[in-house]
């Protein structure tokens, strides 16, 4: 009896204590955590999650005490390794390998870039990829929207309230790890979006079809994610097996002839449109022409009429060559346009932004290759950072819509290769400290064990981003005229005959000459007849 009482009072005091802690320490008391109703586990009831956690890795250790294999699974994923060997091309890609035309690459910039890594502490190239506790469970499974990785903390959240940017009035509150750990759930749009909406350093910067407007979009913006419609989460299509998520921009399925995936039979992946819709999803009307197009035209081409149309602009141009300018007092410059978009900043150079953009279109068969650091480039040309094959005659290729990111970036002028930049960090070699291109390029190239000639220049580059999100309701999909017209969207794809756009100029010339000549001939014939008839009458 005594024992029972003791147990009871311990429980009571435990509850009281939690309430007290919750009330005192929690600034998110008004946040209603989203509960997954179908789960058989209530994480608030797990004793190990009642602890106060000092750090993220401490939470992970608690998670692993039940989910014993979770970190082992994650260690095999692209999300963890930022490395991926393309099975078709053999090329090693991934975020730790490819060079883009935003901040170029992660070398020497780790602590900033890895604020979007699903781990803790990747602050230099010596990061331990075998560490179990450094897997960040919360960034994907937080359901409270209170967990945030601090922008410059190598994947850690801030454990004390902290201002960012440094010295500003924007205070990042330290998240309550215990509260978050007790309220984990399935991934939601917010979780994926925390990184994927902010790629390239800000909202909507990188992709154009992924930005914060997709957190709670209406179906006009995205027919799948729309909260007034299907209300999908990302994982509805980007299914995961052992934490490896389907869908890839490195190894693209440009044409999924496999069609609808049936669980039990052949459920391979749901990340293509065809996985659910099949290859002939359009109702057959008088014409069956729309289904006839699916062999050559990707779904996204007609069904994403424009991108960046949720009110968030995407970056279209980034010119590093103008970076480093300062005002008369030697202070950094920041220029905004009338829309409030930053068009120049000393650290980064010139920007152009776009909203509600019409995509550009290319044949894509899926074998995307990235320009490697040791690959020679032709600096007199615009350098394509990623390339792919595809043409009308290629049975695997279809016409896809793209955002093409353009800009100018430094390159190794002596070696005619791409270069990296050491941008971020406290040391003087960081461009954002010293504004010295040569030393910042050398620093990053040294770290990547790449040869740097010591001479840099600037080249114009392109980076192709295939579009797959912001699929509009069918009423808003493109009408035939968008392409089947003289100045249509496919004006640049000239390797095939496109009715309505193309004609044989010689045939048209001869044809109209024949028709109009005939018309002229019969008119003259008629007038002459009339003339002679009048003449006869007069006689």
């Amino acid at each position, binding site marked *: 009896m005594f024992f029972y009482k003791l147990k009871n009072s311990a429980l009571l005091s435990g509850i009281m204590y939690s309430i007290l802690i919750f009330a005192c320490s929690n600034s998110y008391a008004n946040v209603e955590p989203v509960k997954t109703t179908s789960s058989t586990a209530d994480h608030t009831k797990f004793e190990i999650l009642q602890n106060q956690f000092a750090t993220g890795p401490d939470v992970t250790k608690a998670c692993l005490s039940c989910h014993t294999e979770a970190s082992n699974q994650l260690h095999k994923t692209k999300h963890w390794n930022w490395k991926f060997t393309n099975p078709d091309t053999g090329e090693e890609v991934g975020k730790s390998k490819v060079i883009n035309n935003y901040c170029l690459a992660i070398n020497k910039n780790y602590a900033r870039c890895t604020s979007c890594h699903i781990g803790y502490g990747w602050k230099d190239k010596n990061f331990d990829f075998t560490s179990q506790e450094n897997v960040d469970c919360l960034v994907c499974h937080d359901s409270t929207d209170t967990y945030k990785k601090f922008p410059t903390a190598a994947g850690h959240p801030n454990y004390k309230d902290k201002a960012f940017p440094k010295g500003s009035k924007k205070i990042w509150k330290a998240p309550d790890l215990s509260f978050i750990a007790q309220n984990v759930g399935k991934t939601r749009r917010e979780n994926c979006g925390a990184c994927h909406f902010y790629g390239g350093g800000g909202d909507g910067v990188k992709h154009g079809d992924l930005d914060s407007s997709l957190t709670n979009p209406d179906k006009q913006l995205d027919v799948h994610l729309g909260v007034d419609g299907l209300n999908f989460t990302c994982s509805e299509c980007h299914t995961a097996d052992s934490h490896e998520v389907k869908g890839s921009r490195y190894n693209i399925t440009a044409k999924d002839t496999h069609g609808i995936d049936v669980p039990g039979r052949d459920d391979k992946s749901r990340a293509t449109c065809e996985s659910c819709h099949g290859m002939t999803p359009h109702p057959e009307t*008088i*014409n069956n022409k729309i289904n006839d197009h699916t062999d050559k035209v990707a779904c996204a081409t007609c069904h994403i009429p424009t991108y960046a149309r949720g009110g968030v602009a995407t970056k279209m141009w980034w010119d590093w060559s103008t970076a480093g300018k300062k005002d008369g007092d030697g202070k950094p410059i920041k220029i905004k346009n009338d829309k409030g978009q930053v068009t120049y900043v000393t650290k980064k150079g010139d920007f152009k932004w776009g909203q509600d953009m019409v995509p550009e279109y290319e044949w894509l068969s899926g074998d995307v290759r990235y320009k490697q650091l040791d690959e020679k480039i032709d600096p007199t040309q615009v350098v394509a950072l990623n390339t792919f094959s595809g043409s009308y005659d290629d049975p695997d290729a279809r016409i896809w819509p793209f955002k093409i990111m353009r800009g100018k970036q430094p390159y190794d002028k002596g070696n005619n290769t791409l270069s990296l930049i050491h941008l971020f960090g406290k040391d003087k070699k960081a461009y954002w400290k010293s504004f010295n291109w040569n030393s910042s390029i050398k620093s990053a190239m040294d770290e990547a064990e790449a040869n740097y000639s010591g001479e840099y220049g600037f080249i114009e580059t392109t980076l192709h981003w295939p579009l797959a999100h912001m699929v509009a309701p069918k009423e808003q999909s493109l009408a035939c005229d968008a392409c*089947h017209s003289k100045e249509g969207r496919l004006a640049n794809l000239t390797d095939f005959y496109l009715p309505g756009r193309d004609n044989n100029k010689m045939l*048209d010339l001869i*044809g109209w000459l024949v028709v109009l000549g005939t018309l002229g001939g019969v008119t003259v014939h008629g007038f002459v007849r009339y003339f002679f008839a009048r003449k006869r009458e007069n006689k």
Partner: protein
Amino acid sequence: MSQVIMYKGFERFWHWTQALLIIVLLFSGFNLHGTHQFFAFEQAVNIHIISAWLLMGLWVFAIFWHLTTGEWKQYIPSSANKIIAMMKYYAMDIFLGGGHPHHKTRKEKLNPMQRMAYLSLHLVISPGIWISGLLYLFYPYWSDIGIGSWSLGGIALIHTAAAFALMAFLVVHLYLALTTSKEPLGYLKAMITGYEQE
């Protein structure tokens, strides 16, 4: 000279339905060709497809009618001399008020040049349009019938060339049909009522 039924009911139905469909097909076809944008592309596609199937259906009946009634013999070419006489008539005598070398009867409705013109319409221009049009319509299935390497541009070229030829034919046809009868618009009346002086 007597009033006879020159054009039977089916013949008139065939003529006018075909006339309407050909005009709709030409108009929607040049819409698709990009010559004008009266209809949206998809509408023009639908109009073109419906009219094409209707005209093909009509042709099936017309061929059956021609074969079973023996009317197909009307298109057998005349002798070269007679054709030359017709050409001379259109080039010379028609101005000078000379007599028509052909006497139109129920049995021989078509003059020697008409025979040639309609025969080439039926055997060259129309099949050119039908075959190229069907290939155009079923273009995604070319590889299934082993012609995947053919060029759509080539088929489109044939289809368009035939359309131009048909349009030129239509111009001459309208000119002759509307202006060369003895009484004004006599041929038009005959094609509407069926009756004409033999």
